[in-house]
């Protein structure tokens, strides 16, 4: 009896263990924290700095790094999380001190500065012999190429578009805007959405951070302006001034923007839309996931930026990159991890989780991107995507933040005109054209 009972118990335990193994192996690899990572004895460490450590990204990156560490035995990636506000500063300090990490995640406008410091590894040879080289969109390669040298891998892309509330359209009995909408239609919609007595505004204008200057610059391109023409700075051309004036009038004349617009940064414009204070805002696909949670996937949609008087439009293309440093102690390990992150499944998982667009064309064609209405505006913006003109000189990135944004804020508040704003900005940019 006892023997039978013990056999039965053993059988039960075996069954339980077997079921556990099957369940564990059946888990998608990115949800596999319960599987003990394979110990990579003697594996060489790869120091990897990662910014924007909010909970979703931390969980995602931990699982991706764990997956990489399990998939081979030669390298072990050690991830260092740094808040985004300090990430660039930490990297600069590390580069200056001569001890940068092997690899970092950085935006392409930072990489230009790091490259100017002589700190970035040229990965042209590795990239060109990489199996997915031709699958990466050519514009994505442009964002990470300086002086004919590829200096990063584009992990994900961002293009700007316009988010709008579809439920408010129905509520107010307004016509659905079409992808080829114009400035006039944009303004009419912003006015229709604005109900100041209800604390509702048509457009969540951004006055804080780098993009406070980039968004009106995109409008300027729609008016036929360009920042650089044949190497000559034309940021304050008549077309640009007119476009900026039109843009500032959204706040000054038409009052379709919230009173806080002059200091509203990324968090504020996303939050205001999510709370129903604004019904439109300009941003990249990165906040689509958040808006699905905030307002609901069926209550908003996205469109490319509107067509301007010059019958043109442009959306600035930025890349979130993986960048290796010259001072890296483990270049081979860094490269292995970089290329792993652009493989099919990691790239798909990364981009779908964070609402970003993948750099590889074959992944972008997947229904997760092409069929999602929240991303339609950005996918449709590919034909109008251009590399941000402000990446042309490494010194411009810092000057946008230190000098450009305060000028934009002054203009948004009506303290200076659009012409004065751009003339002064042009003087600043001219000094950095080396």
């Amino acid at each position, binding site marked *: 009896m006892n023997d039978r009972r013990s056999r039965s118990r053993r059988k039960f335990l075996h069954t339980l263990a077997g079921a556990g193994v099957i369940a564990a192996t059946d888990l998608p690899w990115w949800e596999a924290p319960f599987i003990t990572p394979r110990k990579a004895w003697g594996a060489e460490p790869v120091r990897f700095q990662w910014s924007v450590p909010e909970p979703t990204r931390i969980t995602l990156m931990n699982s991706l790094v764990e997956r990489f560490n399990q998939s081979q035995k030669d390298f072990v990636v050690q991830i260092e999380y740094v808040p985004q506000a300090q990430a660039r500063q930490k990297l*600069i300090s590390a580069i*200056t001190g001569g001890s940068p990490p092997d690899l970092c995640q950085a935006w392409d406008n930072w990489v230009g500065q790091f490259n100017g410091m002589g700190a970035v590894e040229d990965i042209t040879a590795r990239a060109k012999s990489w199996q997915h080289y031709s699958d990466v969109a050519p514009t994505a390669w442009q964002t990470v190429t300086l002086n004919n040298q590829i200096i990063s891998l584009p992990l994900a892309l961002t293009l700007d578009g316009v988010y709008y509330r579809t439920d408010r359209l129905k509520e107010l009995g307004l016509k659905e805007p079409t992808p080829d909408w114009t400035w006039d239609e944009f303004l009419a919609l912003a006015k229709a959405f604005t109900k100041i007595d209800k604390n509702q505004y048509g457009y969540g204008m951004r006055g804080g951070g780098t993009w406070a200057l980039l968004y009106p610059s995109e409008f300027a391109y729609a008016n036929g302006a360009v920042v650089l023409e044949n190497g000559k700075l034309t940021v304050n051309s008549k077309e640009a001034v007119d476009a900026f004036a039109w843009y500032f009038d959204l706040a000054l004349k038409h009052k379709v923007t919230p009173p806080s617009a002059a200091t509203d940064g990324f968090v504020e414009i996303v939050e205001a839309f999510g709370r129903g204070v604004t019904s439109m805002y300009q941003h990249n696909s990165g906040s689509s996931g958040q808006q699905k949670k905030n307002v609901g996937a069926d209550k908003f949609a996205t469109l490319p930026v509107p067509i301007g008087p010059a019958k043109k439009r442009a959306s600035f293309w930025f890349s979130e990159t993986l960048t290796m440093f010259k001072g890296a102690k483990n270049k081979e390990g860094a490269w292995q991890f970089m290329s792993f992150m652009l493989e099919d499944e990691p790239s798909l998982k990364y981009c779908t989780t964070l609402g970003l667009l993948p750099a590889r064309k074959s992944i972008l064609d997947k229904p997760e991107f092409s069929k999602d209405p929240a991303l339609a505006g950005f996918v449709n913006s590919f034909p109008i995507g251009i590399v941000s003109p402000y990446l042309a000189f*490494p010194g411009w990135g810092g000057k946008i933040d*230190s000098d450009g944004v*305060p000028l934009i804020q002054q203009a948004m508040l009506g303290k200076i005109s659009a012409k004065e704003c751009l003339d002064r900005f042009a003087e600043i940019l001219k000094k950095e054209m080396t």
Partner: protein
Amino acid sequence: MATVPVTLARPRTRPLISWRVHKLLVGYAYLIPAALCMLATVVVPIGLAIKMSLYNNVLYKPQDYHFIGLGNYLRLVQDPVFWLTLWNSVVWVFGSVLLQFIAGFAAALLLQQTFRGRALVRTLTLLPWIIPGVVVGLIWEWLYQPNYGVINDLLMRAGLMQERVAWLSSPDLAMTAVVFTNVWRGIPFFTIMLLAGLQAVPDELYEAAQVDGASVLGRFWHITLPLLRPIIVVATATRIIWTFNYADLIFVMTGGGPANATQITSTYTLVQAYSTLDFGYASALSVVLLLVMLAFTAGYLRITKGVEEID
């Protein structure tokens, strides 16, 4: 005749260094570790910053690194934003400290009185001081939020306001708003310091003054204030230095905006160093900040000598 052995007194050997000098040297020897630490952590960095301020040192342009003498200082004199930040710093520092002092003193006088629950109130008074500066900045940023912040909501409900006010986005209001937040945070510092001072004032003095017919105001003016003077001098001077260098709150709440309306010299230095990577110019700004602080400290030392005389 038997000879008696005579032991001659040997003259005392004169020490190489006198006892007084020896004592002095031992004293200095004890100071060496602390002096070395100060040298490594204060003097050398200051020296390096001064050296860096004399160079064109833009991190992303290593090929342009060269000696420019006082070039960064000349640029600083011609930079209108620098003068604006210096003025903003004065408003920020003296506005904050003056109001913190007045409110802190009032709170200390109140907490000196005997009432039920005094211990609890004293503990609660410390709260704003305990919260980290960055968290204070975030809390007040949301309180001031024009669209869904509590302050606007309460004022509108109370009928005191018809339209929402963008406290941190208006150049006319932003500095007042951040100063108010800093005042809220700094009141407990003065309260605690002055309360400790008040508790040390002997009751007999007040009793004697009362017998002599001194009014409440007279007792405050002739007893409380003179006896608290050393604490007031030390507390205000320390607080002024801290506030001058305190960039966290402004950085979190406005980032120096809108349109540099709340940009103080310390935040401007950070922007120059870490946005434009112009370490030469940022060092020049730091050196000027140091000189301003040194000038203030010199005045402060003169005042504290006055304090010693009182003691």
